């Protein structure tokens, strides 16, 4: 019976081994203690296979996609300031619809959310200081009592909004200011640059300022700068009826924040030089680039495109083009998460190879961003009074986009081509005011990938 004992001994020996294996597998199966969803980080380049022996430019696209909010989870609480213009130009339908929209926002907030309401004309009135949305009726009453008068102290209004949000500033809340304005800022700092700096300052503290312009009298440069630099949304309501819808979209974003304080660091290859960001502001130092986003929304992708200089490389070689590291606040887990990714490119002598491997998504995004830049240039020309020159730029832009839309079979590019064509026809007289606002809104939407 010795053979049997040997068999038994061997089998018995395997058990602990097996169990060890099982245990380690089990451990390996749970890399995190909680199973919170992750943001998806992608890095791509326009031409994954590049032409060899030639220095050239390349477009690198880094995109982040917010995950879907799991059904059972409570959404992140909100710390929101509504800053409403009550200058005399808001009289009548406008103020009524604005009040209605504000109350609608209030209705969509929950008990745990914090809200404040600030109104401004030539002076600022903190109607409702930052408070939990407990007594809705009292808040509604204050909003209902708004009457229009005076001029526009937009800067002070936004400053107070930021202050109210700062009172309950919290990593675990969505900290937001929504600004509604129908006019020019005429008390206090009022240049787009200054308001942009205010937006940047707010963004540094994690406060996002979204701006909604009502009518044709507001300053779209100022409003887009403020939103852009603080990573907020911008909406254009041509008439007061559209306010409710736009507020709803904005609130939709606010209530679907899945990540905050997103810091993206990209290290490029030693010989690759990052030149500029196409659609967002990028901090470039040597061959490092740094971007930050205030938040990511559920199921929405935000990206930025960096134009880089790639030196001539031998065919068949591979380059470790870039490594990207992201860290962000995951609103589900409440912790800071890290993500990593990297990008390689290879080089080939064959142009066909290059063309075959072209990344269509990246190219479309990059071309759209370039077109938005051209659109901006046309706007500047029109501002200077050079109407014909502006028209030419827009028509050329439309034509280029049309060509590219065919090449890449892109509906996006086709639709932007049409948009440019329409713009080129509406540069004169009274139509310009509306066109300019539309152009700014579209530029902002392209640059920030706004969902509405």
């Amino acid at each position, binding site marked *: 019976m010795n053979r049997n004992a040997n068999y038994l001994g061997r089998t018995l020996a395997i058990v602990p081994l097996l169990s060890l294996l099982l245990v380690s597998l089990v451990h390996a199966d749970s890399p995190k203690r909680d199973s919170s969803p992750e943001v998806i980080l992608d890095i791509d380049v326009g031409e994954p296979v590049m032409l060899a022996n030639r220095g050239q430019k390349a477009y690198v696209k880094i995109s982040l996609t917010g995950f879907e909010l799991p059904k059972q989870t409570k959404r992140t609480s909100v710390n929101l300031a509504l800053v409403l213009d009550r200058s005399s130009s808001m009289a009548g339908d406008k103020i009524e619809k604005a009040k209605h929209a504000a109350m609608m926002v209030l209705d969509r907030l929950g008990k745990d959310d914090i809200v404040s309401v600030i109104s401004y004309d*030539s*002076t*600022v*009135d*903190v109607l409702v200081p930052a408070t939990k949305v407990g007594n809705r009726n009292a808040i509604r009453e204050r909003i209902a009592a708004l009457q229009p008068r*005076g001029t526009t*102290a937009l*800067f*002070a209004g*936004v*400053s*107070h909004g*930021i*202050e109210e949000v*700062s009172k309950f500033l919290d990593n675990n809340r969505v900290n937001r200011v929504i600004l509604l304005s129908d006019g020019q800022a005429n*008390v*206090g*700092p009022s*240049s787009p*640059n*200054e308001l942009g*700096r*205010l937006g*940047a*300052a*707010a963004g*540094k*503290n994690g406060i996002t300022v979204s701006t909604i312009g009502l009518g044709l009298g507001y300053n779209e440069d100022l409003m887009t700068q403020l939103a852009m630099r603080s990573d907020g949304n911008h909406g254009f309501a041509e008439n007061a009826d559209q306010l409710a819808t736009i507020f709803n979209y904005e609130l939709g974003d606010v209530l679907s924040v899945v990540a905050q304080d997103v810091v993206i660091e990209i290290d490029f290859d030693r010989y690759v030089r990052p030149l500029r960001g196409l659609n967002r502001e990028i*901090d*470039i*130092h*040597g061959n490092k680039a*740094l971007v*930050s986003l205030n938040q990511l929304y559920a199921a929405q992708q935000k990206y930025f495109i960096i134009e880089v200089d790639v030196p001539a490389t031998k065919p068949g070689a591979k380059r470790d083009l870039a490594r990207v590291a992201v860290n962000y606040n995951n609103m589900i887990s409440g912790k800071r998460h890290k993500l990593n990714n990297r990008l390689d490119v290879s080089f080939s002598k064959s142009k066909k190879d290059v063309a075959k491997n072209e990344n269509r998504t990246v190219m479309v995004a990059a071309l759209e961003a370039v077109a938005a830049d051209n659109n901006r240039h046309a706007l500047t020309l029109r501002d200077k009074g050079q109407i014909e020159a502006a028209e030419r730029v827009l028509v050329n832009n439309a034509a280029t986009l049309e060509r590219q839309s065919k090449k890449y079979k892109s509906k996006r590019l086709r639709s932007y081509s049409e948009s440019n064509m329409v713009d080129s026809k509406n540069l004169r007289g009274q139509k310009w005011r509306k066109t300019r606002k539309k152009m700014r809104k579209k530029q902002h939407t392209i640059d920030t990938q706004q969902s509405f």
Partner: protein
Amino acid sequence: MFVRPRQIAIFLCIVLVPLAIAAWLGLKVARDEQQVGRHQFQSLLEGRLRDVDSTIARLIQDIERQFVDQILPTTIDDTRAPALFDELRRLRRTNLMVREVFVLDKEGGLTFPPNSADASPDERSFRQRTDAIWRGRAVLYEPPATASGDERTQVQGPERSPSTSMALIRPGSEATPTLAEQGDTVLALAEHRLYGWISWYWAEGMHLLFWRRTDEGHVIGVEVERIALLARIIAKLPAAGLDDGRVVLIDSRGHPMHQWGPYEPTDGQTAAARSPVTYPLHAWRLLHYASPAQTKAFLASSLRLNLILGFVALAVALLAMAFMFYRDYARRMRDAAQRVNFVTQVSHELKTPLTNIRLYAELLDTELDEDDERGHKRLSVIIAESQRLTRLINNILAFSRNRKNRLEANKSLIHIDDVVASVLEQFAPALAARDIETVFTPGADTPIHSDADAVGQIVANLVSNVEKYAADGKYLRVSTHQSAHSTSVRVSDRGPGIPVTHGDKVFRPFYRVSDKLTDGVTGTGIGLSIARELARLSGGRLSLVPSERGTCFELTLDRTITNDEERA
């Protein structure tokens, strides 16, 4: 009617001049009080502004404290270490008050942001706009000296030197920052201070640097994000809380940056009070506008009402006084007029009987015997006396008519010599009775156009005066002259004469040269005044001629000779 325009003018003066003075004084007092009131109002508003400023000062202090104690590193081993650069860039990315960060090593070189290809466009632009400061070519300001003993304002900490505290500007002291010495660099400032501010102007406006010295003697600092600072200040300033008026915070160019208060100032309205903002924002100002209601409420005082009441009372008193004087004056004028009227009336009554007496006396004189010497003599006395009475009555009546401006001259062609001769004839007995030697030297035989009665009365008055006052001289001389343009009659005596001081005054009605002289002498005192007036009406003038001895009057008549006269 009894009051001449001149009297009315005098009365008006008596009433109006004191009133005017009182009004002017009253206005002055009221204005002064307004000034005081305005100053008090201004001080009150300035006090409010200083309160606002102290809020700003506290915020600045908080920011200072945060930078010095928490945010800025206290030691830097290697001013060029890449790890340091990363940390500073992270600081810039995450702190909203920080626009840029900089490091000055202790030799004065700017090591961060680096002057290399690594630097971002923003960092390069920072180097450019701050270049003048690092080279020591910018004008730097020191903070104002702290008011001593103000414990609250001292920032707690080990190495604080007094001049670095952010002084809450005490009421009454305008603490302005002082110019640092020319050529001072930040490093030089850092030698005797731990931290400080620098504000300078570039392109779009004011920029602010905050710096802190490290243990090794380097300087680390930030360019403050001015917009974020402004936003924080605005958020700290009251949004409401002013029941009237408006406060405005303006920048160095006078543009409003923030304002609150219900009142909307009108175009061109000036601020009722102003106050500078605390260092390092000393180029900014706080302005307080007051609404008219506010100003009025503050400056309204009962003083004005009192002044007006006093003025009115004074006016009433003066008017009452003037009225009483007027009544008294009018009454006296009336009485005087009545007296004059009475005298005139009497003279009128006397005139007719007197004329009869003279008439019948002269008739009797012609009917008497030629050798009835005694009878003639007696009659001549009666006639002379009645003539004198006539003259007196004529004088009185002339005086009365003159006062009523009804004295007229009856001009015709007359021989002056004849007129004078007839007057002297009338007076002859009286003059002889007084032993007055009479000399008449005629010299005006050409007839002239004048009033015989008037001239006669003038000469008669002059001679009568000699008889009354100059009888001691025992001499009367009357002479007439004629030239191409005028005829003159001189009446002179060797009496006591009229002193120079009395001069023209003798021609005034009722004027007496001196009581002593004319003691015991009768007379109405109107003779010379009548004579002068008559002379004027007759086309000439009567004047007192200076003479060594006695008195000499000269009647000058402008000679107007018509063609008729010449032919005649």
